[in-house]
């Protein structure tokens, strides 16, 4: 990391931070917590996605029992690319 750089631990974690304190201090690093985004930023994100053609890569299944089971199997097998979406029939 460059001095003054920032680390964003974005996934759910219940443990303590595993980053060594000394390097945070001597390089002026930040650990920045962040949960989701406020509504204003979500609206900006939607606009940005249209402007820059950003789309999540998705796999879809019908919203029924088999669809849920198949989607979860794909997830457990580590084969989801990259978000599974259940679509109402």
């Amino acid at each position: 990391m460059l001095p003054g750089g920032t680390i964003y631990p974005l996934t759910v974690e219940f443990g303590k931070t595993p980053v060594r304190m000394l390097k945070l201090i001597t390089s002026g690093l930040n650990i920045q917590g962040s949960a989701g985004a406020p509504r204003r930023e979500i609206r900006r994100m939607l606009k940005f996605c249209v402007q820059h053609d950003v789309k999540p890569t998705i796999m879809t299944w019908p919203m029924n029992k088999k669809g849920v089971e198949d989607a979860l199997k794909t997830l457990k097998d580590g084969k989801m690319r990259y978000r599974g979406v259940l679509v109402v029939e």
Partner: protein
Amino acid sequence: MDVYCVNRKEYISHDRDEGSFGSHVVWDADALFILPDEMKSEHAGPLMCGGATVWGALSQYNVKATDRVGVIGIGGLGHLAIQFASKMGCQVIAFSGTESKKAEAMAFGATEFVATKGLKDLKHIGKMNQLLITTSEQPDYDMYVSKRYT
């Protein structure tokens, strides 16, 4: 900010009869988003959670177009983080365990790809201003924040 409001009511832990599966529902318009016409509903879904999580980090803490942004993990969050940061003008360094997702990461807009399995340090990688951790398990932070690299 609404996500940190002390009186917030969060999905899953509050209002469990919220009506997601209903044909109609009454909601406070302030808490809703009008989707752009160009956006499909199935694409909007993942943006509301994984997308918002990485957008929140990239949009609120002074990330600049000249920054080098590292993204650890190429999955639901990471594949969007790479696209956002790349389209914001940043150099994006994608970190993944193996080489298997290299082509996809580069297609999402990564400028560099690093397979971390077996690596002891990152001396050969240019240093970064921002580092987004999107893996379900915590990475080996010593590799990213160490005497040799930081």
